[in-house]
């Protein structure tokens, strides 16, 4: 598993890929950070990182599919999938190796973004507990989206299609709570409840406010597990169906 992890990390960091995507992430973070600071005086709301993180999540879902689109689609395109599957490594290790490599990239991005809180702390006050919660929540939420993106990448040979489908799936996941609040859905309270249970944004909101609720952690972890298991099944099943 380690060799797959290492190869994936290399493919992110030995190419400009990791740096460009981190730069884009930092750009978005800066943008929102600046907007929030600029609007600080005019509004009664105090500036907190909660808001920044909450807003960054929205833009972040555009980045995740770009991170994950190649992970399985390219293996199939270049015929290297055959190398992985015929080597004495189980499919589980392939799935986990790739997943952890993408998590490493995510961690790298978050590490770079910590420049802002550090800078803020030097010139003002930062609520450390809340910040840690926000980072944890962001990491869990990001991990879930990465697992989803990888799953979608394993469906297709074309990485662009994987990216677009990933985008759509993540939108659904993020905004399913808005949909559940519409007048139409509120006619069916049960449906509303179910849809709300699947939405990621309110759960992330708790994290960014400084709450670590067990139910939210379980939600993210179980979603990650489901996507990874599904991913495993897709790879196994494709081998049976080929032709």
């Amino acid at each position, binding site marked *: 598993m380690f060799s797959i992890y290492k*190869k994936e990390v*290399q493919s992110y960091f030995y190419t400009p890929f990791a740096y460009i995507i981190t730069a884009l992430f930092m750009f978005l973070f800066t943008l929102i950070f600046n907007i929030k600071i600029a609007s600080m005086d005019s509004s009664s709301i105090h500036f907190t990182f909660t808001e920044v993180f909450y807003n960054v999540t929205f833009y972040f879902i555009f980045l995740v599919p770009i991170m994950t689109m190649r992970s399985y689609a390219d293996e199939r395109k270049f015929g290297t999938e055959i190398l992985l599957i015929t080597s004495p490594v189980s499919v589980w290790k392939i799935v986990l190796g790739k997943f952890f490599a993408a998590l490493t990239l995510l961690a790298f991005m978050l590490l770079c973004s910590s420049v802002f809180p550090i800078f803020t702390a030097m010139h003002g006050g930062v609520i450390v507990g809340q910040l840690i919660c926000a980072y944890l929540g962001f990491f869990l939420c990001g991990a879930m989206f990465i697992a989803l993106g990888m799953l979608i990448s394993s469906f297709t040979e074309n990485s662009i299609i994987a990216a677009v489908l990933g985008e759509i799936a993540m939108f659904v996941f993020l905004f399913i709570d808005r949909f559940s609040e519409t007048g139409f859905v509120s006619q069916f309270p049960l449906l509303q409840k179910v849809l709300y249970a699947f939405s990621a944004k309110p759960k992330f909101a708790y994290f960014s406010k400084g709450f670590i609720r067990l139910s939210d952690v379980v939600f993210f972890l179980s979603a990650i597990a489901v996507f990874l298991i599904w991913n495993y099944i897709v790879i196994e099943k494709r081998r049976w169906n080929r032709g």
Partner: protein
Amino acid sequence: MIKIENLTKFYGNNRAVNNISFTINDNEILGFLGPNGAGKSTTMNMITGYLPMSAGKVTIYGYDISKDPVKAKSCIGYLPEIPPVYPDMRVCEYLSFCAGLKGIPLAERSKEIERVQELLKITEVRKKLIKNLSKGYKQRVGFAQALLGNPKFLILDEPTVGLDPNQVMEVRKIITDLRKDHSVIFSSHILSEVSAVCDRVVIINKGDIKAIDTIDNLERSLGGNLILHIKVKGDRTVASNIIELTEGVKEIKSIEPEGSDFFSFTVELDGDEETVRSALMKDLLNNNISISEIFTEKPDLEEVFVKMINQDTRKTGAKDLLKEIIEADGGDAENEESGKEENE
């Protein structure tokens, strides 16, 4: 020893590989021969555990590939049809990644990589990105990957495709050298290659095994008869009648017109070469047919192969062949028919 028993693969309702069985002995090079789409790659993919089989069993040194895949796969080095290389990696990075995949201990890794690099003469390109390499080098990098960790059983799917003649010779030599402590299964549609390298061949077509034997035996059993080429001037109907009736001639395989009056006959013999030749020459000359060329040759593996593959659709008899030519001639046909009757 590698045992393949009753291997079958269905793609939907389409049967790609049909109930094939063979074994590969230790230190043996087995050629796997068949036209495109015969099921060679599918079979190889099943042996390596990439594709699951619809039915049957593959045992590699005692490990069942579907029940004990990790142990079975660690005995295999596989070079697929398209070398499985990552375009964005350097050759040395790629080999180090593959060494890790195969579980070669860290301490031995660099030594092992050096060994395969030298064996395949890719040491000088090891710092290059794989996407910048030529097809031949990519193929060699893929081959190097298969040799990493010195697996006992090598599966090479058309390893010499895309190489220049010099490289082909080198790769063949490497394969022959591997015989010392490896079993190799080696697919190709180039016959000379198989006959140069392999101990035994499996011929496969449309998913069925047509033959498993040594090359010598195949030649003897199928194309053991000599082929006689004879070029004559004169009436082709008369000539073909004479040739067909001569004792020792098995059949006329082809008749081809050459120039205005000349015809080339290809004849399969089953009698003694000298007797047939002198009898033929005597009879033909007596019937005012002059001979401009006559020689015999041994059928080669190509012949055996084509025969194996097309066993069902072969033409037989001089009549069919003559008819074909006459039809091709068109307007000439009438004259020929009348001429034939006169002669009879």
